[in-house]
C-alpha cells in the first residue's frame, strides 16, 4: 500500500491519519442517530406482596374433569374373567360362554397343545422376570432366538423385540425422524403412531384415508418445499397400518409403495392387527 501511495505522490502518513479520522467521525455520527438502549428495570416486589401472592394462590383440583355417572357405571360393570378354556370363557356370574370378545385369532393364548409345553418349560427353566433392561443382563438367549427366527420368517435382515405393543411405534418413529423431517401419515392411524409422530417433532401431515390423489399431492408439495429451502439430508417418511385397528379397513399398499419409490419416501408399516 505504501508503494501505491508513493506512486501517487501523496505523503503516506498524513493520508492514513485523515482516513482514520474520517472513519471515526462516520461511526460517531452513526451511533448518535441510533436509539439509546435502556434495559427494562426489573420489577422488585416487596416482601408483603410476595407473601400475599403465595398465600392467595389456589390451585385447581388434581383432576378437573371427573368421570361422570355413565363412565363410572362402565368402570364398575367391566366383565371380570374367571377362567378360559380354549374357546369358552367364564366371567363372574356366567359360566362357559363362547368367546367372541378377545383378539385371540389363532387360539394360541391358552390351552394349545403346541404352545403350552414350551411356555411352561421356559417358566420352569428361567423364572418369570428378566430383572433388567436389555443392556444390563436382561437379554436372554430366548430373546435372541426369537429375533433371528422372526427375521427369517418375515424374510428380512434382522428384527428387534419390544415389551409392549404401544411402546413400539412410539419409540421407533422418533428414532429415525427428527426435527425438520417430514412425515406423511394416514388420518386413521392408531393412537400410538400419533404419539410417535408428535414426539418426533417432525412436520407431520395427515392425508385422507386411502386417498392416493391426496397422497401424491402432498408428496409433490413436500418435495417442492425441500427443493425451495435447499436443505440437505432431509428424510421423508410415510406411515401406514396394514389393517387399521379402529376402522377395520386395509391400506392400499402396492400403490403407496409405488408412489413412495417415485418420490423417495421411506415406508413404515404397522402390521399388528
Amino acid at each position: 500500500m505504501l508503494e501505491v501511495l508513493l506512486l501517487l505522490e501523496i505523503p503516506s502518513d498524513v493520508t492514513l491519519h485523515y482516513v482514520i479520522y474520517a472513519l471515526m467521525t462516520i461511526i460517531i455520527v452513526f451511533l448518535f442517530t441510533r436509539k439509546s438502549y435502556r434495559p427494562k428495570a426489573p420489577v422488585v416486589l416487596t416482601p408483603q406482596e410476595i407473601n400475599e401472592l403465595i398465600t392467595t394462590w389456589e390451585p385447581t383440583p388434581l383432576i378437573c374433569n371427573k368421570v361422570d355417572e355413565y363412565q363410572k357405571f362402565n368402570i364398575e360393570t367391566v366383565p371380570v374373567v374367571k377362567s378360559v378354556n380354549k374357546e369358552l370363557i367364564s366371567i363372574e356370574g356366567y359360566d362357559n360362554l363362547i368367546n367372541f370378545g378377545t383378539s385371540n385369532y389363532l387360539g394360541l393364548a391358552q390351552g394349545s397343545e403346541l404352545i403350552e409345553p414350551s411356555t411352561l418349560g421356559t417358566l420352569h427353566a428361567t423364572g418369570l422376570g428378566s430383572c433388567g433392561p436389555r443392556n444390563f443382563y436382561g437379554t436372554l438367549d430366548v430373546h435372541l432366538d426369537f429375533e433371528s427366527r422372526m427375521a427369517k420368517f418375515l424374510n428380512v435382515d434382522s428384527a428387534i423385540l419390544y415389551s409392549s405393543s404401544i411402546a413400539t411405534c412410539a419409540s421407533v418413529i422418533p428414532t429415525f425422524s427428527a426435527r425438520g423431517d417430514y412425515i406423511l401419515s394416514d388420518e386413521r392411524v392408531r393412537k400410538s403412531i400419533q404419539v410417535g409422530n408428535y414426539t418426533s417433532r417432525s412436520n407431520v401431515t395427515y392425508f385422507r384415508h386411502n386417498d392416493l390423489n391426496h397422497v401424491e399431492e402432498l408428496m409433490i408439495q413436500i418435495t417442492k418445499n425441500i427443493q425451495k429451502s435447499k436443505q440437505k439430508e432431509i428424510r421423508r417418511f410415510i406411515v401406514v397400518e396394514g389393517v387399521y385397528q379402529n376402522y377395520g379397513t386395509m391400506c392400499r399398499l402396492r400403490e403407496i409403495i409405488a408412489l413412495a419409490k417415485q418420490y423417495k419416501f421411506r415406508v413404515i408399516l404397522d402390521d399388528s392387527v
Partner: protein
Amino acid sequence: FFSLSIMGRINVEQLPFFTKITTYVPYFIALVFSYCRVSVTNLINTLKGNSVSTETKEYGPLVKSFNCFFEKWMFSRIMDLFARPITGVPGAYIDVLIQTGEDNSINTRKLTRTGEVRKCLNLGSYNYLGFAENTGRCVDDVDNTMRTLGNSTCSTRLEMGTTVVHRELESLMCEFLGKEDCISFGMGYATNSTTIPVICGRGDLIISDMLNHASIVVGCRSSGASIKVFKHNDPKHLEQVVRKAIIEGQPRTNRPWKKILIVVEGIYSMEGEILCLPEVVEIKKRYNCYLYVDEAHSIGALGKTGRGVCEYWGVDTKEVDILMGTFTKSFSAAGGYIASSKDVIDTLRMNSFASASDISMPPPVAQQVISSLKIIMGKDGTDEGQKRLASLRRNTTYFRTKLQEYGFIIIGHPDSPVIPLMIIHPCKMPIFSRMCLEKNIAVVMASYPATEVELSRARFCVSAGHTIEDLDYALEVIKEIGDIINLRFEQNDPLFL
C-alpha cells in the same frame, strides 16, 4: 476423598484438575481416531466405486446426528460390556454367554457367541428380594394361572381384559400401600409416559428433578405442560423454583398457574441416592402443590416391611398424591402401578392411553406379583418376607461399608441397595468389567450418555439372595482389581483433598 464419599454425592466441579484432563484426553483421542477411520472408510469406498449408496443420496441418511456416529465408531470398542446375553435364571448366580468379535478382536460391531457358558456372581440384575427363581411357591402359582387363564388376555382393560387376578392384585396393592385405589399397567415405561399427560395439560407446571428417568421426561413433554427443573435432590432449590413460579405465573401472560406438580423418584438408580421426602412433603404442603413419587427401585427394597420410601422416612402415604412404581425390580415380574385416590384412578381407567387401548397385563405376570407380595406382607403364614428384607439390609450395609473401608469412592445414601462405584477415567471402565468377568463376576457399567462424560461408574445391585461368602469373594476380586488399576485411595490422598 473421604469427605466426598460421606457426603454421598460427587459433582464435576469437585474433581481435581489433573483428573479432569486425564479424563478428557482419551475421549479426544478416540474421537480423532474415529473421525480418521470414518474419512478413510469413505475414501476407500469412493475409490472402489461403491460410494455413498444411491439410497442414502436420494432418500436421505437413515440415521444422523452425533449419537449415531458415537455409537457406531467410538462405542463399538466397548460393545462387549453391554447387552451380554444370559441364559437361565437371573438370580444370585447367572449364566453368562461369552461373546467375542470377529477374528477374536473386540473392536468390531459384530459379536458372536463362542458357546461358552460361564456361571458368574450376579451383581448387575435388579433382584433386590431374590424372587428371581424357577422353583418355589411363586412359580407353582404362576403355572396354575397360565393353565387356567392363558398367557395373555388378548383384550384391553375396558373390554374383556380384566380378570380376577387383576382385581386381586389391585386390592392387595391398595392394602400394602395404604391408598384408596390402584391401577396396574403392562409395562413400567408406559405407566409414566401415559399417566402424566392425563393429569397435566396446558396451563400447568411440572417441576421435575434434574436426573429423572427417561420415561418421566417423555411423559412430561408429551403432556403439553410447562416444565421446570430443579437441582438434583436439593429441597432448597426446589423451594426457590416453586416460589418463583407462583410469583411470576405463566410466561408472558403472567396469569397464575392452574396447578403445580412436583415429580421426583424414590431411589435414583444411577446415583444410589434416596429422595429426601420429608422436606419435599413440607414444601408441597406449604405451597399447595401436588406430589408424584416414582418408586421404581424403592418399593419392596426400603422400609421395615418393604413399603417403600414413605415408610423409610415415616411419612404417611396420604401426604403423597400419586404413588407410582414398577414390578420389575423387587417382585421379579413386569409392569407398573399407580396408587392414588379413587377419582384419579377412575379418570386414568377411562382416559389413559395405556389402559384404554393397550392389552392388559398378562395374567401369569400379575400372579407372580400377587404371590411375591403375599410373601412380603407375611400373608402366606411364614416369615420369609421379613427374612428376605433383613437379608437385603444386611447385605447392603456390609457391602457398602467394606468397599468404603477398602478405599473406593462410593456415592449414594448408606441405606440404598444400589451401590455406584466411581471409575472416573473412561479407560478403566472396560478393564474393570472384563477383568471382573474373567473372575466370574457380572457387573454393570454406566458411562456417557447415561451419566455425565467425566463421571463413569460401575453399579452394583445387591440382592437378598447373596450370602456373605458371595459378597466376600466379590470384595476380594474388586480389591485386587482396584489395586491393579489404581481405584483405591487412602484417607489423606493429596490427589483428592
